[in-house]
């Protein structure tokens, strides 16, 4: 198992290099470059001065030289400086990443807690009215645009009912400490977490339903029933434990959709996370931040995939990787 994980981690390296080349190329064809951030108010847009700035920044070098320079710096831990704030990129990301992980983790947990019971109910009462209603609701959940669902929740729960704050992570009017500060963050988290969970909730409940249905058709379930085990025991002890195995992998595979959702959700709710940082960076053409956010997202996605495979082997002893 350890060898398998190590091999997968080694395989991730060329993957990350390829992603970085692709992103670098896209940023390369984007208009404008770093020199515009160093425009001197006195010398203005004097071409000779701009040329000098470009040379001092290394922008007159061919693209592969600049890519290798970027790669070398990144590998040595130097992510450069944000064009807009002039702060180190590592600090900018460091400020935002924990907030995104908090939101993403909470939404994965919420999706799991909602999807599993719904899937079980659907499977146990399959082809009944309840199953059809839950199935249709799941399809509606998958179909709602994230940003529209966010606007709906904002309209009802933030504007009309005023139960939850509409934007941000903290109440700026108060100076909370200790437990009150945590509760304040939780209060701000509720709506964005629900928005970010919607897609997962809906699709996971479908997976849970079919996994349980498949398990219920197995021979050992018939055996359990034949020896007279109570239905509760058959479902709870024999069927559910095996039907949960595929669910474990879904958590890791949900990372790309959480990353995508974070860009939209964080922007709407003003959540100070990596997604909003990324959208701001795109709008401000802040290329060092754009590169960092892309690479970090790719790392999260690759780690998510690896976790999915490892979790699968851990939960199911029949799976063995060499």
């Amino acid at each position, binding site marked *: 198992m350890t060898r398998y994980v190590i091999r997968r981690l080694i395989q991730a390296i*060329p*993957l*990350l290099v*390829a*992603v970085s080349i*692709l*992103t670098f190329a*896209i*940023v390369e*064809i*984007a*208009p404008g470059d770093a020199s515009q951030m160093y425009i001197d108010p006195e010398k203005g847009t004097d071409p000779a001065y701009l040329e000098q700035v470009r040379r001092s920044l290394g922008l007159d070098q061919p693209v592969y030289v600049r890519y290798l320079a970027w790669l070398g710096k990144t590998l040595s831990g130097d992510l450069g400086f944000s064009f807009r704030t002039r702060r180190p990129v590592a600090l900018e990301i460091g400020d935002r990443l924990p907030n995104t992980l908090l939101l993403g983790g909470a939404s994965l947990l919420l999706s799991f807690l909602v999807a599993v019971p719904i899937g079980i109910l659907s499977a146990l009462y399959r082809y009944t009215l309840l199953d059809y209603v839950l199935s*249709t609701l799941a*399809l*509606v959940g*998958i*179909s*709602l*645009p*994230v*940003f*529209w669902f966010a*606007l*709906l929740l*904002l*309209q009802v729960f933030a*504007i009309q009912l005023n139960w939850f704050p509409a934007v941000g992570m903290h109440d700026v009017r108060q100076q909370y400490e200790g437990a009150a500060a945590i509760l304040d963050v939780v209060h701000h988290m509720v709506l964005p977490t629900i928005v970010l969970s919607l897609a997962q909730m809906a699709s996971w409940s479908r997976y849970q339903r079919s996994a349980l249905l498949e398990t219920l058709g197995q021979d050992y379930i018939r055996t359990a029933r034949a020896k007279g085990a109570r239905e509760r025991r058959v479902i709870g002890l024999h069927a559910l434990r095996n039907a949960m195995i595929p669910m474990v992998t879904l958590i890791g595979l949900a990372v*790309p959709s959480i*990353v*995508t959702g974070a*860009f*939209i959700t964080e*922007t709407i709710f003003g959540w100070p996370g990596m997604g909003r940082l*990324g*959208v701001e960076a*795109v*709008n401000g*053409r802040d290329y060092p931040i*754009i590169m960092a*956010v*892309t690479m970090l*997202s*790719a790392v999260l*996605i*690759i780690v998510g*995939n690896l976790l999915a495979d490892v979790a699968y082997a851990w939960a199911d002893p029949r799976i063995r990787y060499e």
Partner: protein
Amino acid sequence: MSDQTLSVSLTAEPTPQWKYAWRQFRRHKLALASAALLLVLSIITVFADVLVPYDPNAIDAAYARGRPQPPTYEHSFGTDNYGRDYLSRAMVGVRVSLVVGVVAVVFQLVIGVVLGAAAGYFGGWVDNLLMRITDVFLSIPSFFLLLIIAGVLEGTLLALIFVIGALNWMTVARLVRAEFLSLREREFVMAANCIGVPGWRLVTRHLLPNALAPIIVAATLSVPYAILTESALSFLGRGVPPPHASLGKMLQEAQPWLRTAWWMWVVPGAIISAIVLAFNFVGDGLRDALDPRLRR
């Protein structure tokens, strides 16, 4: 068994596969209703220029007086704060959504089928190389990349469509590859090989038709994804360029009026949801209808 019954069953016209499929599809009432809705929306897409009650970009400042006006008999979906007729804008927006969704999926089908077929048919190092490329595309945060590229394009709708397609072909490629790998081992392919059917013909006449059902289902279920991507980009101000109306852009413009003008955000959001839901239901129905093992 007598000779007579045998000859009867041989001369009888076989029921075409699509008839079975249609019979099964008809039973899925929601899928049938969704297909009807999509038909209506397609008609709107084609004839939007004739059907719109007003010019979707015509500003009537005197009517709006700077505020969105509620639905009336003349303007059944109301107007926005510039006095532009919301029904007309929504119809043009439906056109943008459907065109983006369908064309992007056609584009990603072309890439996905070609790469997946090559990987599955040739196997070996070709398969290995193509699948590693697929892995790279699966590891990139494609929505964020789209956001960057859409900022670069700052222009044509067609370019946006191509980029959406170019970043989302991986599912189809993997699906086609898996189908080919399994079909390659079947007896009929071996038989075709034995009588010397050339490779190109084997792919187009024997392998692809047998892999068609899952491709059609995957394509139908990819359309909503492309539509949601376009509207999300437009919502973030990075999608369809002005002055085109897009449902996502209408939602973006509705944000300041969240409190006061419900039709501004209910109309475009409900339409996007309905389109996406309809495609999902039709895909669901097609999956049941095209898979003989699922027929009841």
